[in-house]
């Protein structure tokens, strides 16, 4: 199972992902139509990407009265069926991430569908702040990263220097 990994430390805040996303789904360039969002904190000069996490316990799907949002166990994507949507916007309220959005006219629900397994946002992220990875690999890489730090401490300990 692959997931979208977001790394705020690598993000440079260029927002190319937003433009790629809106174009892929709507055929125009408009950050308001993008499923992914980069939040910029200018005072701290920090940039934080956010997008639908395809939750296991998807509140948006639970609250949807018409079954327009359904968690697909096979693809792991919370799928949105536009034809079933009545526009009640309860999914917008329910999503803890703010990742169920309204497109730029404020009329229709939009959400990330992982581009059916080939996310456009990942393709334009020159800094690799966005990656689409097997979840096991992502976890393993993180564990390894932490392990590298512990390894250095262990070396010191081996010398008899207790940190």
């Amino acid at each position: 199972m692959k997931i979208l990994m977001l790394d705020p430390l690598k993000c440079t805040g260029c927002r190319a992902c937003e433009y790629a996303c809106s174009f892929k789904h709507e055929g125009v360039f408009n950050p308001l139509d993008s499923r992914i969002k980069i939040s910029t904190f200018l005072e701290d000069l920090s940039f934080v990407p956010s997008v639908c996490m395809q939750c296991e316990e998807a509140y948006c799907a639970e609250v949807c009265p018409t079954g327009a949002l359904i968690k697909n166990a096979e693809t792991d994507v919370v799928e949105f069926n536009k034809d079933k949507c009545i526009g009640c916007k309860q999914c917008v309220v329910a999503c803890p991430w703010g990742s169920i959005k309204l497109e730029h006219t404020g009329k229709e629900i939009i959400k990330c569908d992982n581009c059916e397994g080939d996310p456009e946002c990942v393709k334009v992220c020159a800094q690799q702040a966005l990656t689409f990875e097997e979840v096991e690999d992502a976890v393993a890489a993180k564990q390894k990263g932490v392990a590298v730090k512990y390894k250095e401490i262990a070396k010191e300990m081996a010398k008899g220097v207790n940190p």
Partner: protein
Amino acid sequence: MINGSYQGKILRVNLTNGDVKVEAINEEWAKKYIGGRGYGTRIMLKEVDPNIDPLSKENKVIIATGPLDGTLAPSSGRVMVITKGALNGAIACSNSGGHFGPALKQTGYDMIILEGKAKEPVYLWINKGKVEIKCAKHLWGKPVDETDKLMREETHPEAETMAIGPAGEKIALIANVMFNGHRAAGRTGVGAVVGSKNLKGIAVRGNLSVNVADPEKFMEAVYETRDILSKDAFSGGGAALYGTAMLVNVINSVGGFPTRNAHDAYFPEAEKISGETLRDKNLVRNEGCAECPIGCGRVTEIKEGKYKGEHGGGPEYESVWALGAMCGISDLNAVIMANYLCDRYGMDTISAGSTVACAMDLYESGFMPKEDAPFTLNFGSSDALVESIKRMGEQKGKFGKLLAQGSYRLAEHYGHPELSMSAKKQEFPAYDPRAIKGIGLEYATSNRGACHVRGYTIAAEVLGTADRLKYEGKAELAKTFQDLTAALDSTGICLFTTFGLVGKHIAALYSTATGNECDEKEFMKIGERIWNLEKLFNLKAGFTRKDDALPPRITKEPIKTGPSKGEIEKLDKMLDDYYKVRGWNEKSVPTKEKLEELGLSQLK
């Protein structure tokens, strides 16, 4: 109705009476001059008498995007400020990165024409196409970063902002216009013109889409160009790692790094202020402007010494040089602090640094009486640098007021204008013409005064294969770079894309976005047309061949040390060649034939 990636509308705001009008983009002009810099200059020629005082209410300021702004084209978020410049009265186009350009486009306007003068300080709030002129009395006097924050608090947290700082308010001739709090349209004193109109800033937020004429072909060009930039050694490697300041060691190693007001062109302590050192000691993260795969922007923090805890954007190469080597300073923390202060006051770092260097030169040579200097002002004094920048920003005392007008006025005041390292009264940037011949020709002929980003011949002379010490071929080189840049600027794409891209790539992005058929040859022709258009404005403003000059230090005093020791710049022969290559007469006036060829005869 215009097609493609233009929004097709211009917003005209009269600050004197508060009138707001919406006008259609002129399709013929869009084809002839693209947008941004080119289109804005055409408006200036039609609507503004080139002979006016740039600080009078008759001057206009055009805040413009190009047709690639707001698209996924790489590094395509430039915003341009076009006006008659305050520093020298020439046609000025200063451009900036950040996110303001695309946001302006999303409000539905390609550009804003600002006219007249507000009775009291105001700022504009353009929200989804609606325009509000808001009181800015409470913002007047505030530094740029705070102004940006307050404007967003008062309008929308996601608004993108333009603002001037205290320097622009006080009409410092080296004042800039800042975007997103820390990005600058730095040169030519555009901030003074905005300040003269009592305009503190603009906040924009829109909800409209940008379309392109041929989506399939456009995206092909987008992915091809993004890919090239990611693989290029500079745009896909060094620039992200070390920022533009990676050039410190590169330029110093050829002996072309002006030092101590260009007394020399080699700085033995360059390593201490290099991009590599900046990365080691101060870099927090990289920052990218809109849609930029390069990410040369620096987010930095001062981690030790008396400025510990200060943080902000930059510095980039030119700032490190101007506030560093040019003043003989190798204390990187002081250079970074001076850079932050310039951003907060809203001053151009190149002009500010070079002006402090000029003051140090005047002081050491005894031309500036000791009592005129508020402190000892020797080359290499980092305290003198930081204190001078503060006094300039606040225009404190005679010293602060004098320095805020740039090095030319300062040096002229003390009877030695030759000590101003400038052309057309604008301070030249971080490449010494004695060591890199073509860039000197470029400084002398640049339509907005000495400048490296009108025609970056460095790409060929230092980073490429052209012989930097030869004069032959430099006229053609300068023309080619100037024409390409004029067209490229006008599309809204960043000049740094040319580290990997050539004319045909930009032409492909431009033509598939707009639907205007354009190959590389035509693109270069448009660039030449824009260059000549700017020249026509300057000729009408009274500029002649004698203004295409360099300081005597560059043409007469040989470099003292380093790899280019003994070199001087011989400008006159290159100038003759250049005018010929341009199809201008020996007085630098475009010939009738040239203007006819470019479709500019009616403007003569």
